[in-house]
């Protein structure tokens, strides 16, 4: 499944335009502690986090995560969007909380 398909099916708002919509989503990881994410998230994971500062882009780039999903439309810094576009990491926002985003991703078949 691609980032673009997830965006469409879950009604997520892409904040980085068309960037990275063809990236493959292989799994999902939810955590707001960056060192914990560094240690445990996998390549291709969609990462759900309410952290919105620029360093999330560094984490996603280093781990080759497929995308970042910001739940509950948490406000995101302009610099983060700029950096994500530079690095080709798609960031999307959701109206739902992290739990509901995860539930919807499972219903799409992720995590099987």
């Amino acid at each position, binding site marked *: 499944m691609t980032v673009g398909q997830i965006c469409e099916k879950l009604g997520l708002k892409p904040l980085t335009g068309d960037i990275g919509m063809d990236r493959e989503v292989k799994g999902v990881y939810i955590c707001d*502690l960056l*060192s*914990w994410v560094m240690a445990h998230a996998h390549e291709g994971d969609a990462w759900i986090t309410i952290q919105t*500062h620029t360093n999330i882009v*560094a984490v996603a780039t*280093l781990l080759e995560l497929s995308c970042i999903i910001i739940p509950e439309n948490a406000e995101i810094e302009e*610099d983060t969007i700029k950096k994500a576009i530079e690095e080709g990491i798609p960031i999307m926002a959701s109206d739902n909380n992290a739990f509901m985003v995860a539930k919807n991703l499972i219903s799409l078949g992720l995590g099987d």
Partner: protein
Amino acid sequence: MGTLSYEFSVEKDDFERAGEASSKIKKILMQLGMDSSIIRRVAIGAYEAEMNLVIHSLGGTIRIDIDPKSIVITAEDIGPGIEDIELAMKEGYSTATEKIREMGFGAGMGLPNMKKCSDVFEIESEVGKGTKIVMKMYLKDGD
């Protein structure tokens, strides 16, 4: 191939650029065609070292030396030094401020993460002088 070396300076409190040195290191390894599992280990080690320099140090450098048998990451700073290294190495222990923690840093996992992804991990520190961390990762056939 001999030894390839690169050095990056990391500024104190520079959260804007934090992660750039480790991203550059990762790109170098990708250009060298290294295996993804060794790249992941180096990326984690370099990132944690870089973030520690940004959060805790007065500034420093990250250096990477690549030879046919191993990759060595060296992080060195100009202070303030760690009082109790054993305590600092304990998972969950952190001296980061509340503000830093709210950003998702300061989980007390930086040094343990560095140790876990290294084959050889060395740390030496002197209060008032600085800290030096060396992470060595051996390359296997196919890396």
